[in-house]
Every structure is written in C-alpha cells, then in structure tokens.
C-alpha cells in the first residue's frame, strides 16, 4: 500500500516535470534511417548547390524538353500560357499587377532545379531525368537572358548564376 502510494507520487511527479520542463522525453518509437532512404528522400537544393546531382544540360537541349512537357501550360517561350509566366516582367514589381518570373523575381537559380524536379511537370512530377531538369533550367535562364544559350548547367555552374533580383528581398526574421 505504502509502496503503491510512493510509486503513484513518482509517476505524478514525472508527469508534472514532463509538462513543465522543456526536455520532455518521448517514448522513442522512431527507428534509424537507412543510408538508402536518406538518398531517396533528400531532394532539397539550397542556394549553395549542395545536393545537386551529377549530370547537366544546355538551353538547346532544354528547349526540346520544354516544348514537349512545359509549353502547353507555360506558353511557347515561357509566357502567354494559362499557367504562371516564366519570362519577362522586369519593371513590373511595383505595378498593380506585378509579373513575377524567373527573370524578374526569383533570387536563386538553384531553386529552379529544386522546384522543377520536385513539382513539375504539374501532371507528372518527378518524371524528368536529372539531365532534363538541368536542361530545362538552362533553357529558362537563357530565355530570360540570364545565361548564354550555349552554357551548360550542372552542379558546378548552376549555383554560380547571378539572378537579376538577387538583392530584391529583405528578411523579416532576425
């Protein structure tokens, strides 16, 4: 009886500490992540380009992919389609209808690779090869006049592309 009460008190104390304290230990029901899982799951590409895969492509190669997989929504030359325009819009950011494109707004070229691989084409995301993603990125950068049509985009060159609106953002998080 006495032990039982004492045990109850300990359990109660633990519960109180758990609620009040910040280091509340959980039941540890997660399992270790396998190296294979880590490779499959990791698709995020930050501005320094870490995680960019091998491969590459040029605007010329990208144009072929774009016309087959992207133009129906984004228009023949990255504009004029029913989906977001990808080209032009410079000088519109302070207007009533800002046209936010890769050329006028996007601060990092790496985000192109990340987003196209992650989410495009809309009806079949994750269906493009890494070479295709590099090539389409190159094509869109070239259409916006940011890189030369012959430039090859790969893990080394893509993070070095300086975007026109690179300085266009002010972080409101300290």
């Amino acid at each position: 009886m006495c032990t039982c009460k004492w045990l109850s008190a300990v359990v109660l104390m633990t519960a109180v500490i758990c609620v009040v304290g910040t280091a509340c230990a959980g039941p540890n029901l997660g399992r270790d992540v396998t190296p294979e899982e880590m490779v499959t799951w990791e698709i995020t590409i930050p501005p320094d380009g870490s995680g960019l895969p091998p491969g590459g492509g040029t605007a010329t190669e990208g144009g072929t992919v774009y016309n087959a997989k992207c133009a129906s929504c984004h228009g023949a030359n990255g504009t004029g389609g029913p989906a977001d325009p990808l080209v032009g819009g410079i000088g519109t950011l302070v207007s009533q209808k800002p046209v936010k494109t890769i050329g006028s707004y996007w601060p990092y070229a790496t985000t192109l690779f990340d987003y196209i691989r992650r989410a495009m084409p809309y009806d079949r995301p994750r269906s493009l090869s890494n070479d295709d993603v590099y090539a389409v990125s190159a094509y869109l950068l070239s259409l916006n006049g940011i890189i030369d049509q012959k430039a090859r985009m790969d893990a080394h060159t893509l993070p070095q592309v300086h975007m026109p609106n690179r300085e266009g953002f002010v972080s409101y998080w300290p």
Partner: protein
Amino acid sequence: MPKQGRRQSTGAMELPVPVADHGLLDRRAFLTGAIHVAGLVAVGSHAGDLVATAQAAESMTLETPPWMQGPGQPFRGYGQPAKYEEEVKRTFFQPYKDIAPGSGASMTPLHQLQGTITPNGLHFERHHSGVPDIDPAQHALLIHGLVRRPLHFSVEALLRYPTISRICFVECSGNSFFNVAAEPPQKSCGAIHGLVSCSEWTGVSLAVVLEEAGVDPQGKWLVAEGADAAAMNRSIPLVKALDDAMIALYQNGERLRPEQGYPMRLLLPGWEGNTSIKWLRRLTITEGPVYSREETSKYTDLMPDGKARQFTFPMAVKSVITHPSAGMRMQGKGLYEVSGLAWSGAGRVTKVEVSADGGKSWAEAALQAPILPLALTRFRLPWNWDGSPVLLQSRATDEKGNVQTTREQWTAQYSAGNVYHYNAMQTWSVSPAGEIKNVYL
C-alpha cells in the same frame, strides 16, 4: 457622443441611448435586459427569405407537422448537415482552371457560420497540387539533417506518443487578397476573407520528437516538406518549432481530413498557413533557410520600392464583421446584432470596436469567452438601425497593443500588387433599402 444609460423611445420599444453614431448600443445591453431580445431582427441572405419563412411557420402552427406523424430516420455511422443547409459551403478559387483544378483555394463561408470553431468540412483549403490520397500504412515522417540520430516515424508510432491539444486559427497569408483590387469586389464575406478557419488540433509536440533526434547546436532552422505532388516545403526557424509547434493528427476530435493533411500535418499556431505543411513527410534540420520556391517566388510581400519582405511569419491583428455582411439584406429598421470574428498572430484579442459611420465614432463590442491566444474570437454588439445609410467597420486590438490598420495605412506599406498579409479593416455599406456592399474607405 451620447451618454450611456438613458433610454430613448422607438415606437413600441424602449432602447438605451446609442454609444456611437447610427444606433450602435452598449455591448452589455442584451445581457442587462435593456433590450427585449424579441425585438431582434435577423438579416437574410436573400431579400424576403426570412419573412416568407416566418409566414409559412405561422400558418403551420395549428396543424400537426408531418415529421410528428411518423417515425424519423434511423441511425447513420457518420452524420451529415440538414439537407436544408446545403447552401452552406465553401467557394473556390481556381486560378489555373482546367489545367490544374486542384491548385488554388477554397474559402470558409464565414458569413454562414456562428461561434468560432470551423466545421471540418468547411475549413478553408489551399493546395498547390491537389489533395493526395495517402495510405497511412505507407506514409512516414523523416527527421534528419543536423541531428544526432536521424529518425523514421511511422504513423502508427506517432499515434502512440503523448498528445497535446490547442484551439487555434490557421490563416493563409493570402487571405482577403481580393480586397487588394482597385475596385472593391462584390463577393460574400466568406469569399473575401474565408482563408481563415479555427479548430481544436490534437497531436504530438514537435519539441518531443526533435528532442529524441537530438538537434545539433548548429541547427537553427528546419525545412518541412509535404507528401503532395508539389512536395511543398518551407524553411522554419527552429525557435518556433521548439516553442509551440505540433505534428497534428486530429482536427476537432477526428483524424485529419485528407484536405487538411491526412495523416499528419505541421501546425505552427499564429503563423502564415503556408508554413503549417500538410501531408508532412520530412523535417530537415539546417543552419539556415533553403530559399524554396514558396518562400522566394511566392510568399514574399512586395513593398513600394519593389523589394519584398521575406519570412514574414506571424499573421497580423485582424477582424471582420460577418453579420451583417455583403450580399445579405437588412429586414427593415430595428434591432440587430452585429457579429464577427477577430484574431491575431501575436496573442489574444483584447478589444474589438465597431463603427457605423466609417470610423468617426466607435463602440466597444462584447467578446465571447474563452478568449484564447492565436484563436478566432467572436465579437458581438447590439445595433438599432434607423434605416439611414451607414458604413460598418470593425477594428481589433491584441494583447501586444497592435491595432488593425485602415485600408489606407495598409496600402501605404506595400506595393500596389502585393496580395499577402492583408489585415486592413473591412467596410460594409448599408443602403436605406437594406442592401449591403463591400466598399473601400
């Protein structure tokens, strides 16, 4: 301004003297019995609806109604609203139309609801690539990056964790963006402001699972990613993740709906809805933000100089009158209840004021308890409409002293085309004929 306490005669009814122009009464008038509640007039969505209903009910009272002349329906496993309420539903915003019908938003019909908790089937939706059909047995959450031990959680495992609950709003940072247009859109209150909803969320404290993974001291941010076809992701400061973030598994008591992130979503109370990643599948601890597409090309707020604010996480103090509101029609002069919702990403709402003369004079509204931080708060005020044209507004203040801005003040902070973080006061005009419209002041 007239003093409180005295009474004025309005025909058959004795009413207190208004506390602000155009008949706004003391917020306690209903409670103190200064007003006979029977005198209250409700506004209808369609002209004459309520009058017609009242007349039909009058003629029925002498007969036994059909539902008393035989037994009703038996039980059903999952209840549905009354069939007479089928007009209460979300409105859609599908900017890409047929090419991407699942990309866009649906808005909570705020003007058709009361209280503060949004029914699960009416919670607003914002999807970037439709609603995925996720088999929970094949879904998992990965926590990795700058951690001591990367962890893989099955849904089943997370369901065994100690749970926490909290009532809070979720608001899309694009809420009310229709009011950015040069001309005020003539839409319902819900169609304009319905990208905000409020639920009781239950799940696992994110701090608990992060503690198990052991965050490296270098880790200052985390990147949350969803399992939808857009693999939607956002960078989030670790401070928030350790403060009050939740891996939500239940909404208003039941498991999350697919459109709210089934089988699990991130919940960041008070922060722009886009960061509360639905269909959560991955949390990567990082040193800094990864500048995903959503936090660069989308959820950034253009300022007058053409630069854009980035990582503007908390939603600002805001309120809107839901009753009466655009599209409804006043049912003649008399006593009404002005009612609406207020909220703030900075904490509790402490005050809501109502004006019927476009902001010249104000009356303080009653706030319905409990007033919870980061949750929708219902406000109410009795109003004796004299049939003259009025401009109804509400203005919220939160516990940090933030006061909701005028549209003019809000507009001055941003570029003309900015559609994010709109928290200006809403103005509804009421014509002598009882027509209610959206206007800008």
